[in-house]
């Protein structure tokens, strides 16, 4: 069974600064995928970024990038140039094969003007 752990319940960052959200996971699979989803207040969850475990290169999407450390089973999300619209819950998630996504408990990020 896969597990995902997010150890930071809440974080805050000043606008335009950089913040890193942590995530660790555990899986016995060799081929798996890792995701960060964003859930703004009262709005639907949307995909921020995804990483295939077999790829060594860290995924990037504009201001969002990941630090994927396969041996350490770590998958952190870096948000650069933070914007007020980045305020949301962020969930780390993992799956493999045809198994459904398993989510962590989330990190509440507040961007302060």
């Amino acid at each position: 069974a896969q597990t995902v752990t997010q150890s930071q319940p809440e974080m805050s960052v000043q606008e335009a600064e950089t913040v890193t959200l942590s995530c660790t996971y555990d899986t016995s699979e060799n081929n798996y995928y890792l995701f960060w989803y964003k859930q703004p207040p009262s709005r639907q969850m949307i995909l921020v970024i995804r990483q295939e475990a077999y790829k060594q290169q860290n995924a990037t999407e504009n201001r969002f990038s990941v630090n994927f450390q396969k041996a350490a089973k770590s998958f952190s999300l870096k948000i650069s140039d933070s914007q007020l619209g980045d305020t949301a819950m962020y969930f780390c998630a993992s799956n493999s094969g045809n198994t459904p996504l398993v989510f962590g408990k989330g990190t509440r990020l507040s961007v302060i003007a």
Partner: protein
Amino acid sequence: EAGVAQSPRYKIIEKRQSVAFWCNPISGHATLYWYQQILGQGPKLLIQFQNNGVVDDSQLPKDRFSAERLKGVDSTLKIQPAKLEDSAVYLCASILTRGASGELFFGEGSRLTVL
């Protein structure tokens, strides 16, 4: 492209009453999921459908929860009778086809409060 539609957005009921939630996935998406998200926690899978068949319902409390997707499109999740601990947001999500790499699309959720 229309997103995943869910209704109602909010529902308040007394314990032991029943409630039903509806989900219309993105057109053409074969796989549909219902997740339960309790306040302060991440979403937890309740049931997964592939077309109109159940793929995984191992975490569905079957004594009180039921779900169906009769024509392989819309889905309904029912709770009867509700308990206080069922207070949560019920998220519906869909994906084009089963597979680990695909992006899951979520609805806005149905927030249930059981008094």
